[in-house]
């Protein structure tokens, strides 16, 4: 009888032990050398808020970053090397600024097949969810907005926008539309402007 109980206990503990090691649901499973997974180095998306990664200076303890992020926000008003074209001196959300951008800026990229193709790619990724792949304002997300909120590119209001104003809207957003300057870089934005013009004409 005693041996029988022993076997039961052994079987139960074995199942418990083995099943605990399998990755599933909340459990990532057993890690061999966890240091290799939770890196000591600062990986871009790791979040280090623990004291271990802090700096002690003259008796005061500083965390590497106050939010625990490894990524640092650029200092206000600075621009990284090679990113001069990211400078955009037009204030967001202002009609006059938008018109000024339309007057002062023109598309620096020539209208080539390659630029148009690239524009289409970025348009389909970033714009088409709302504006639709033909620019009629009928994207799957766009349809969920109240009717008329996402304009069609065929309307005069959009048709009369100059390239610079389009670039301004892509960069800063306009009305309900969010700013896309953080998601696509300046070259790609101008390519998208080319593609929007193409859609308007067709």
């Amino acid at each position, binding site marked *: 009888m005693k041996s029988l109980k022993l076997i039961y206990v052994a079987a139960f503990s074995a199942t418990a032990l083995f099943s605990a090691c399998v990755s599933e649901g909340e459990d*990532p*499973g057993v890690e061999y050398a966890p240091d*290799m997974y939770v890196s000591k180095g600062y990986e871009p998306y790791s979040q280090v808020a623990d004291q271990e990664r802090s700096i002690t200076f003259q008796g005061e303890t500083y965390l590497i970053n106050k*939010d625990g992020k490894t990524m640092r926000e650029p200092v206000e008003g600075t621009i990284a090397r090679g990113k001069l074209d990211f400078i955009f001196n037009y204030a967001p959300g202002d009609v006059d600024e938008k018109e000024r951008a339309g007057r002062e800026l023109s598309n620096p990229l020539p209208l080539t097949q390659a630029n148009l193709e690239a524009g289409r790619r970025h348009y389909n*990724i*970033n714009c088409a969810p709302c504006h639709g792949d033909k620019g009629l304002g009928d994207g799957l997300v766009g349809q*969920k907005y*109240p009717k008329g909120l996402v304009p069609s590119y065929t309307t005069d*209001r959009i048709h009369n926008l100059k390239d610079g104003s389009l670039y301004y809207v892509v960069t800063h957003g306009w009305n309900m539309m969010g700013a896309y300057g953080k998601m696509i870089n300046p070259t790609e934005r101008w390519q998208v402007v080319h593609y929007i013009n193409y859609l308007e004409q067709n």
Partner: protein
Amino acid sequence: MIQMNKRYRLEMFKNAIRKMVGTTLTVGLLISNAVPAFAQDAANGKNLFEGNCTSCHGVHEKLIGPALSGVSDRREEAWLLKWINNSQGMIKAGDPIAVKLFNDNGKQSMNSFNFSDAELKDILAYIKEETAKGPATASAAPAGGEVSSMSVANNTQGMDNDQTMMILGVLAVILVLSSILLWRINGVLQKLIWAKFPEKKEEEEPSWYNTKFIPWVRGLNPTIAIMVIVTGFGLAFGGWFFKYANTEIGVQQGYAPTQPINFSHELHAGQMKIDCQYCHSTADVSKQASVPPVSTCMNCHNFFKQDSPEIQKLKTAYETKQPIKWVRIHNLPDHAYFNHSQHVSVGKVECQTCHGPIETMAKVSQHASLQMGWCVNCHRESKVDVENNDYYEQLHADLKERGKRSISVAHNGGLECGKCHY
């Protein structure tokens, strides 16, 4: 008679008219200013409104600007006419209502328009008409409801699965316990029968267990027997451990942690068909497929599902500028190098090849094992498309010279140790 009849008819007619006027008045009172016919042309107003105003204003919902239902009751018409055509001028002039409106709506200035008074009155007539119709006809309401009910349905389904598993487990335990109980009862009853009728025991045929197995076991050499058993167990355990170490230790396949915000790829990528790179925008140019900043979420969620508790978390994060602590699922150890841009831009590998059917996952789990064998297999099997990729121009020329037609990633150095381990 005829005269009587005529008078009677007249009376009836008058009554009917009285009734009609009565009902009209009641209905009119009930739905306030709905029924009276407008001198203005609401249809023209509709066109103008949809062409110029809907980007910022809804009749029943607050967008950039306030909801416009009942605006004619709130403000005087003369003020409205002035405001629509020159709102910024009025703010600068210090009109108290104008300044208050400007401050209450996030200091967003409204475009100045160039409508004629007749056009403005048409627009106001249209808004009046829509106000009377009530928000039930607004297109956004059913759409939002539909979406939220879908995500709720997903949640309950998940719970159902867990509950089913638990119930099945309990039932299995009950089954095992009751069969043990029955087996024991059977044994006890057998013994009782034998105690009462000893001759029954002798009637039974001696079992194979008693006549053959027990004597055979007794005849065995105990040392050898134990060695055989231990070796058997050892082999079985070793085999299990080999498989376990191979497929489980450090392998996080199936890992599906709960995220701080209950984000559904099934809804966003599946039903709404938003491109993966809308959010993971750097997948084609960087080592990392970036996790989107909260502002990306707010591109749409400044309007959609404002009341959902999950979106409230998002808004709090946005307003307090606190990063959301997403839990990382796919994690390679430091000694293996992986770069998204190589695979997405040059290799033109679909996201789903490694991440599985992500557009069907309400909660993301790790699809692939991310083991080296898995990487290497794909490198062996994938053909390099040298023809349509400028990146391989030189390689393509060399291949042509040697008369080769196609190569796999492995031929292109995809199996070199230093390619990933350095």
